[in-house]
Structures are given as C-alpha cells and as structure tokens.
C-alpha cells in the first residue's frame, strides 16, 4: 500500500484527470440477508490483471443497522486539524449522533497513516431544503473547501472503504471480512498516473449512490458542464464522479424511475427507436431530447449501488460495450452477481462445492441489468429498453413538422 496522497492528488497532477482500467465486482442478496465481505474480496482479488496496486475499494450496504436512520459519513483526513474542522463544521449543521475511528489494520511501521473516521449525522431541519440536499451541500463543501479532508461516503446504513493499494491489501486494512452487508460492490484499479490517491479510488459515492466504474467517459466535458448548472462541483480529477452525480440528479432530484434514468445515460440508438411503435418512440425521444447532456459516452462498464428507497444494484455498459460486464444468478435465485470478468464467479463456485450459478449471461450493450432487494432481477440486461416496462404518456414530445 502507498501511505501518501490521502485526501488529494499531488499538485502537479491536478490539471489532468486520472484514466484507468479496472476490475469491478458486486452482488446483492434479494432477501436482504447480510453476508460478510469475504465473498466480494474473493470476487475482486482474482481479477489481478485489472489492477496495478494503485487503488481499490469496497462499498457495503446494510452495515449500520443500529444507525440506519442517520447519514453515515466516512472520512479520510490527513491531519488532526482537518478532522477537528470537519466535525466542527458538521456540528454546526446538525447533530453528530456518534463519531469514531473506523477500525483498521494499520501497520506499525507507518509514520503518516491517514485518519479514517466515521460519523453518524442528523442534519438540522430546514424548511426549504430536503435533508438529502443539505447533505449534498455539506459533501461539496467539505471536499472543495476544507483542506486535508475528504468524504468517502455519505449514505444511510452503508459505507465506502477505499485506499491506495491492491484490493486484497485494502480488504485487510479495513477488515472488510468483519462487515455484514446485503449488497457489496468492489473495485480494483489500474490508473495511468503513478501516484494514485486514496480519495480517487472507487467506489465513488454520494448519498446512497455508489459507483464502481471501468473505463473512461469521453463525454466528461459535456456531463460536467451540465452538472455544474445544478451545483455539482467536479473536483476529484476523475470522470467517475460525474456518473455518481448524474445518478443523483436523475434519480433523486428529477425522480426518474431507475430504468428510465439508465435509458437517459445510455439511450437506445435513434435507428432502434425508429423501429418501435409511436408511443415508445415518443417516450424515448423525449428522454433523448431532454437529457442529451446526461448521456454517457466512451468505453465504460459500471455497477451502481443505490438505495433510495429500495436497495438496488444496477449494471450498465456503454452503447458499444467497449468494456466487459457479466452477470450471474445463484442456484437459489437469491443472489445476483455482476462482474467485469466471469473469473469472479468461477472463483466462488470452485472454492465451494455446494455452490453453483444457475445462469451466467452477458448483458447487452447499453442495456441496464437491475436487481432489486425484495423484487429480484427486474431487468436482465438482455431485453430491449422499454420491454417489460408498461409505459404510457400523457405529455411527451410534440412532433414538429420535420419529424
């Protein structure tokens, strides 16, 4: 592990974004049963070809049942002063229910370890702002304006653990095995810039949305400028943060159903839309016209953890599927797995004779795979965008003369 660059990139790298290749893995238990992180560690650490020891991380949903009604902040600090300032700032904006160090296995020979902290927080009531909106502002403020502090995650009953090292090292460091969660996401990376930094590792999180991402967003400039209109500051020198913010904007602020939001991010081609019936054309064209700047371009495969209100795992690739994504369902149909490589599933089945996958499949390009707590596999990533969806329109696009 690299014991440096915790809350920000070194100055000389800040005018460039970090590009990376990555391994991504995750699973969700449909019945909500919580399992230890061992399984996801196995899934991610086998993908050795996709990491170079410069960053890895985990997101776990359902790990803080005791504090499930409060926002769980996971922080990285470089200095005691940063911790004091941040907690002071938090205290001014609400009530800190509990505040403690996140247990870690810090090697004894490290003279400058990061301060890794969590706080459970209840924001002050506001008449004109939703609590989520207050938290969003707090996260933006801390990341942009409090020196030497970084918010790793800010959702409820969940947390992100990440750092600069190999995935197995990060797992050991945070003692991931000791947490029990119903949904796990894991990421390992191969960044192009050598220093790497702890905050820049994945998952990227905002509120209850965590994103693990393999690829590069070629539409970054368009997306970033679109988000800037809504007060999202892209300060993390990586393209992945725009994905997290776009999910937040579309799903939380604009309240789009998840399946519709994924269609905005990776919409069907116009040629495909033209083949559909009038009703579906109107819906999809309305989405494309309105959310033209939210569309993600470039090679990517992402797995998103989301829990507002129902915990959900979403897998999505770019429209050309220039990055891999494989999905699987367990024999008992209770667990849906996603990974950048099938090796993750093989690792699980080969190490346990009593366990096998019912089915392993390759979701189609630009088509979301959605697994929801309590509901199961809502979309398998193989059916066309609007199939299964019983869509209607009361408004929709008014076709002009040209159409």
């Amino acid at each position: 592990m690299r014991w440096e660059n915790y809350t920000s990139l070194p100055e000389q790298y800040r005018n460039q974004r970090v590009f990376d290749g990555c391994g991504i893995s995750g699973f969700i238990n449909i019945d909500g049963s919580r399992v230890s992180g061992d399984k996801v560690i196995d899934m991610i650490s086998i993908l050795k070809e996709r990491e170079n020891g410069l960053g890895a991380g985990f997101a776990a949903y359902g790990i803080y049942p005791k504090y499930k009604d409060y926002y769980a902040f996971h922080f990285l600090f470089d200095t005691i002063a940063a911790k004091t300032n941040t907690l002071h700032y938090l205290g001014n904006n609400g009530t800190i229910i509990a505040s403690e160090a996140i247990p870690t296995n810090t090697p004894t020979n490290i003279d400058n370890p990061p301060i890794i902290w969590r706080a459970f927080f209840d924001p002050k009531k506001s008449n004109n702002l939703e609590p989520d909106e207050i938290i969003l502002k707090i996260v933006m403020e801390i990341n942009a304006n409090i020196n030497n502090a970084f918010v790793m995650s800010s959702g409820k009953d969940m947390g992100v653990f990440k750092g600069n090292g190999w995935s197995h090292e990060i797992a050991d460091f945070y003692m991931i095995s000791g947490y029990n969660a119903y949904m796990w996401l894991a990421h390992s990376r191969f960044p192009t810039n050598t220093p790497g930094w702890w905050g820049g590792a994945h998952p990227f999180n905002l509120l209850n949305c965590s994103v693990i991402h393999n690829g590069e967003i070629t539409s970054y400039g368009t997306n970033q400028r679109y988000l800037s209109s809504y007060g999202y500051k892209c300060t993390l020198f990586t393209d992945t943060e725009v994905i997290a913010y776009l999910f937040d904007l579309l799903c939380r602020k604009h309240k789009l159903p998840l399946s519709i939001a994924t269609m905005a991010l990776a919409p069907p081609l116009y040629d495909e839309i033209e083949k559909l019936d009038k009703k579906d054309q109107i819906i999809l064209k309305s989405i494309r016209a309105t959310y033209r700047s939210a569309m993600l371009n470039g090679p990517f495969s992402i797995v998103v953890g989301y829990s507002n209100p129902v915990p959900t795992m979403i897998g999505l690739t770019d429209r050309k599927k220039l990055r891999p994504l494989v999905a699987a369902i367990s024999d008992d149909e209770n667990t849906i797995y996603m990974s950048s490589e099938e090796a993750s599933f093989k690792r699980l089945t080969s190490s346990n004779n009593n366990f096998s996958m019912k089915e392993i499949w390759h979701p189609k390009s630009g088509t979301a795979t959605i697994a929801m707590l309590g509901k199961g596999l809502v979309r398998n990533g193989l059916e066309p965008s609007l199939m299964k969806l019983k869509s209607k329109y009361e408004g929709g696009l008014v076709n002009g003369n040209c159409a």
Partner: protein
Amino acid sequence: MAIVHEILNYFKVEINREQCKKCKRCVNHCSYGVLSFNGEKIVSDDQKCVACQRCAVMCPGNAIRIVQNESFLPPHGNYTRKIRNIIWAQSGDGGVLLAATGNDRPIRSIFDDLLLDACQVTNPSIDPLREKIETKIFFGRRPEKLTFVSDQDDLEGVSLKTKLMPNFEMDMPIMVGHMSLGSISYNACHAIYKAAKELNIVAGTGEGGLHPDFFEYAPNIITEVASGRFGVDLNYLHNAAALEIKIGQGAKPGHGGHLPGEKVSSLISQTRMIPKGSDALSPYPHHDIYSIEDLAQLIAALKEATRYKVPVGVKIAAVHNSAPIAVGIVRGGADFLTLDGFRGGTGAAPRIIRNHAGIPIELAIAAVDERLRQEGLRDQVTLIAGGSIRYSADLIKAIALGADIGMCAMPVLIAMGCRVCQQCFRGLCSWGIATQQKYLVKRLDVDIAKNRIKNLFHSWNEELKEVLGAMGIDSVESLRSNRDRLRYIGPNPHIAEILGVKHAGE
C-alpha cells in the same frame, strides 16, 4: 459632389490572343461590362473587373486568365493599399461605403487556434464506417426535467407526464444561414430549400418573406421576422418549421437590412410586399422592441399566432454583452437562440460596421453557453452559432465550445458557384446567385446547385463522424460543450481562459 479619383485596379484580364477564337462568349457572360469586342479583338476595361472568373470559366478556348495588377503603389506598412483605396473612394463620392460577404480583415481566426483531441490506448476510438455514430439532433426548447409517475401497484408501470414544447428532428447539426430572396436569387433559394429538405436539415429565409412557390419546403424552413416585417403575414408565419425574430446580424450589428432598389424586381416586390425598385431598408431596431420586455411580448405574440406549434427564437449579433442579453432572451421565452459572429456574411452592409463591429463567434459561444449554464437555462434551449463557419472543422469546434447547431451561408454560396468577388450588393452576380436579373438567374441550375449543397453537407457530416469516432464519442450530443476535448495553441492564453479550454500540453 463626386470628384472621382482614379484608383489603381486590382485585377487584369489577360487574353491569350492565339487561343482566343473571338466567339464573344466572354462578352456575353461578363455582367460587369468589362469585356467588349471592338470589331477586331476582345478588349477589357480592367477598372471594372471584379475577378468573378465567369469569363475565364466560360471561355471555350481557355484563353482568359484573371491576374493581379502588378502595377505597384509605393509600399507602406500602415497606409496599406486597401486603406488608401478607402480614402480615395470616400473623398471621391462622400458616402458610406458598402461591402458584401463577411469581414475581410485578416484577423486571426480563433477556430484555427483550436486543436481536437483523439483517443489513444485508454479509450478505443470508433470507426464510423463500422459502428453507428449519431448526428441527429432535436431543435426546440426542452423542459428542465421529465416527470414520470410510477404506478404504485406495478413496479414496471410508468407514465410520462411532461408535455414537451414543439421540437423537430434534424439529421445533421447544420443549418443554412438566413439569406433572403432579394439578396440571392429565386433559383439560389430554391436550390437551398430543396437541399435542406433532402438532407432533413433547416434553412433560413432571411427577412425577405417566403415566396408562395416555396411553401412546400416549410417543414425545413425557418422564417425570419425582422424590423422591416417584409412579407410577414399569416401565411408566412404558418409556413415554417420555426420562427426567428431577427434582432441583429453578425455582419452588421446595430443595423437593419439593406437591399438596394436595383435588386427589388417584381418578384421581390411581391414577396416582400413593397413597391418595385424601392430600396428595402429595414429599420435599425424593431420599432416595437425598445427593451427586453418588448421582445418577450413579440415572442409571445408569435407563439400565439402560430398556436404554439413551432419553436420561436431570436437571432442576435455577437456583441460585447451577448451573454447577459442571451439570458434575457431565453427568460423572455425564446425556444432557440441564434448567435451570429462578427465575420458573418451579408449581401450589403456598410463597410465600417462589417469590418469593425461585433466579436468573434468562438468567444460569444463560450460566453453565452457559460452564462446560460450559470443561470441553469442552457440545456433548455437550442443554441445556433454562425459567422463564420467555413468548413467542418469550424463546425466541430463550434459544437465543442457549446453550440447545438452550426449555421453557415457562405460555404453554401461557394458550393453553388460563388467565387467570393464580394459584389453581391450590386445585383450583377454573374453566377446567378446574388442577383435578380432574369438572364443571370437562369445561369444557376437548381438541381445541380442543390446536389452540390447536399454533397457539401454530406461530407461535413461524414467528417464530423470521423472526428467523433476518433474522440470515442458515438453521438454528437456528447460533443456539445465538451470543451475538455479542445486545446488552444494560439498566441493569447487569455483567449483560452475565456473559452474555458486548456492550452495544448496541459
């Protein structure tokens, strides 16, 4: 009182006497009265030559060459030949000098100082011949967000509640700029509208009304309501894909239209609803728009008149305060906004304005896009930028800076045969483009001109796809405002700051 001072001619007609067959075809084709036959040979009055090349192209013996007059004025780095000519011309007739086409001063083009990004290793580029790359876009206003209501009982039941304002689709992010019937000929207009229809893009009518013959092209036409209100009646308003209120034009910010009476033929007089032969000078401001709230009223009135079926927008020239003006216009209800840069073309404008007023379109796009974003309005409107988009590289860079659509007119004229002799305001265009004289208009074959325009934009669109593919982008929507994919290599880093573009190497 005119006191003519002989000005050194710029051009000379060189006739190869051995190759000349004395067929006099050149004499017939020269609309500027340069060439004549003196009974023995073809002779030229070089003072009148505008280098339009018509004679040279039409000569069956290939005997004519237009060359620069090598006769030489004493050199001076500051009082250039052009400046001396301006002074002689003005001291000769005491008037405001007219000029046509766009600004001809050799001011550095910012587009030329921008470089495009391409993929290497970490992201794969896309081959447009093998993979789909989309250039379709929507034209019109969009809501800030869509409202879908989920069915309580059924997870998969959703219904779209938002009603979108009128929008139409275009197959390329390209629009033919506004050139009126009057400034250009019937055949030129016809070729442009036909091409726009076949390409499924749009073309502007300018402020000259719309001839009833062209109503069939209405789905691909944006009509203009300008300060002169020429040709504006209910038929005009109802025969358009979109309506544009023209406040200003890049070539002459702060000015109205100038159509010299020479060009007001009976056809033009009918279409514009003005007397034949009269100068069509539209007022400088709209005399019912002296402030932003007046503009909002006209936008509302036009929407009302068209029953909210077509987008209504506003065109302004790119001037120093374009950004706040643009915000006001969008808040005033405009569905689209057209920005016309200081290099934009014209059929006739005072030279002083054409050459010295306004700002470059690159800076205007950047400033307007940024300000509209700060106000949270950018994604709701369609932003069209022109003046001057010369070729696909300019189009691509304009989109990457923040425009939805690139608007151009000069390249369309050049595609039809224009040699850029810059005499449009005289109505003598020997190529049948910027003239109303029947014998000249006939020279422009509508279908050939149409096909040349189609070929031109088809090639631009293909080049756009090539660039998108190299950038690893499969839809032009992801290029718009993607300044991240541009770098600056010009001499003035402050320009890069205003553009929001990094310097090359950063």
